[in-house]
């Protein structure tokens, strides 16, 4: 079901909502060989969650969300590789702050526009950042990428090991925090007003809502989360490439979210999970044609399930309910 705040319906966490966390812990215990892939999926889920907040709830359409992810990734990387700041939480805080600053500055400008203009402006921002990162080779490594990133043990205790155990749990905790914050926002009066803005901005103006400020606020929150996701990727890979700022990456994220289901919170979980597992398996089976399989999957979802994978699930559940006496 689509999840959103309501003045009439409670916001208690249902048992099904614990399922992803139980599954994630089960993977940690039962499938240790997949932890590096699992950590990457968790990072992408956090990133998709940040996009869902603005696209699914506030209706802000963007093709440049990778700007915040990429900035967070580079800030964490530069701190660890060039400035000797190796504490992972400090790196994460700096990445979040930088992404938040970029979010509030760019949001203040671009959220005065909408539609195609807004789409182009979001694209322009990430393209500018990509070019800056490409040219600032001394700082970012340019096209070769930024390597030699040092990440100290978390709390001085938990070292990032070669099997990816620490990284997986670290990403899982970060995602849990992101999910908790997102859920609170979505169910709050603020989140409910965002849905109002998405549904009918004209009416929200007419009831006295400061529409523009709310949009800038949620855009900044979302940018902060995306920056954290970027920092996580840097810390778990200890490498940053230019692709984190690319338009293709932003597009890929959008595809993942659409695949899972927009404006549902858990669509941001299902989309990256299915997309990346499919990518992993298809790339092994058909190294040259794996994108074809992803394309087919997306076409099927767009044609037959506009609500994404969770939309299909919704449909199935409601049919079963109707069928049962």
């Amino acid at each position, binding site marked *: 079901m689509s999840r959103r*705040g*309501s*003045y*009439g*319906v*409670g*916001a208690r966490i249902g048992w099904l909502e614990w399922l992803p966390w139980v599954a994630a812990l089960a993977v940690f215990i039962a499938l240790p060989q997949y932890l590096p892939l699992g950590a990457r999926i968790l990072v992408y889920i956090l990133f998709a969650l940040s996009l869902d907040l603005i696209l699914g709830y506030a209706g802000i359409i963007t093709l440049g969300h990778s700007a915040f992810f990429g900035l967070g990734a580079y800030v964490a990387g530069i701190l660890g590789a060039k400035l000797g700041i190796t504490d992972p939480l400090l790196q994460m805080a700096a990445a979040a702050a930088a992404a938040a600053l970029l979010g509030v500055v760019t949001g203040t400008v671009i959220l005065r526009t909408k539609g195609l203009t807004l789409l182009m402006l979001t694209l322009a921002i990430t393209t500018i950042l990509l070019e800056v990162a490409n040219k600032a080779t001394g700082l970012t490594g340019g096209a070769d990428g930024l390597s030699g990133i040092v990440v100290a043990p978390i709390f001085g205790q938990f070292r990032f090991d070669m099997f990816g155990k620490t990284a997986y749990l670290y990403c899982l905790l970060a995602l849990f925090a992101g999910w908790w914050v997102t859920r*609170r*926002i979505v*169910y*709050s*009066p*603020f*989140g*409910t*007003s965002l*849905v*109002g803005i998405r*549904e*009918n901005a*004209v*009416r*929200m*103006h*007419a*009831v*006295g*809502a*400061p*529409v523009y400020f*709310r949009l800038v606020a949620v855009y900044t929150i979302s940018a902060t989360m995306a920056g954290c996701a970027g920092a996580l990727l840097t810390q778990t890979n200890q490498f940053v490439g230019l692709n984190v700022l690319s338009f293709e990456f932003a597009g890929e994220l959008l595809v993942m979210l659409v695949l899972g289901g927009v404006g549902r919170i858990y669509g941001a979980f299902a989309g990256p999970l299915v997309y990346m597992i499919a990518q992993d398996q298809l790339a092994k089976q058909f190294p040259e044609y794996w994108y074809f399989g992803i394309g087919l999957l997306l076409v099927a979802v767009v044609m037959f399930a506009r609500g994404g994978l969770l939309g299909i699930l919704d449909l199935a559940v409601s049919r079963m309910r109707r069928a049962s006496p």
Partner: protein
Amino acid sequence: MSPVLETRQLCKKFGALTVAENIDFRLEAGERRALIGPNGAGKTTFVNMLTGRIVPSSGRIFLGGDDVTEQAQAARVKRGLGRTFQINTLFRDLTVLDNVALGIAERRGVAGRLWRPASAYDEVRAESEVLLAALDLAVDAGSRVLDLPYGKQRLVEIAIALGLKPRVLLLDEPAAGVPSVESGRILQALDSLPGDIAILIIEHDMDVVFRFAHRITVMVQGEVLVEGTPDEIAGDRRVHQVYLGESRRD
């Protein structure tokens, strides 16, 4: 006593086209006023200027004696200006209760809060339910607006505006497009609106206008043609010529 709503020499031009010209208008507290005129007379443009949706080319707007011409829509709403729309402008995918609660939460200053769930704001829900009950919409509180018949959707329009507890309410064709079987409920709702609210109603249905309004303002081609009591307007020859046709209303 100063009027609750006043305009002075209000003009709006779109390039060479003048859609409102030197409109001087006063609405007193508790007054029931109708704004009528043929299609294209500039009525909705006038309302949109009052609410701040359209910026006037010149002239001033006063709300409760204060100049609000430069103020944004949200600021005017907070000063007590509510409106409904000619075409339903609702949150179609949300429940009737949430449609009303969104406005009430804004008025109460809780809509921007981030931490507690919306459902924990019992006072917002309770006020919404009372308002819906007053408009016979209580049974539909949990229904999505898009699942309601059109007449009830028009009532939700009014409910949202009333939730703002306005001092001035602008009703843009509240009964437009409503089948006659359902329009009675809307008229009943209009009759039961609190007496202290000043109401400006734009309406083409003359039965509604003459039943509801204490005074009537007639607009033609962006200008105020005449203003008076229903009897004065009914007897005004210019109104018959430009708006009602030559046949007199008995």
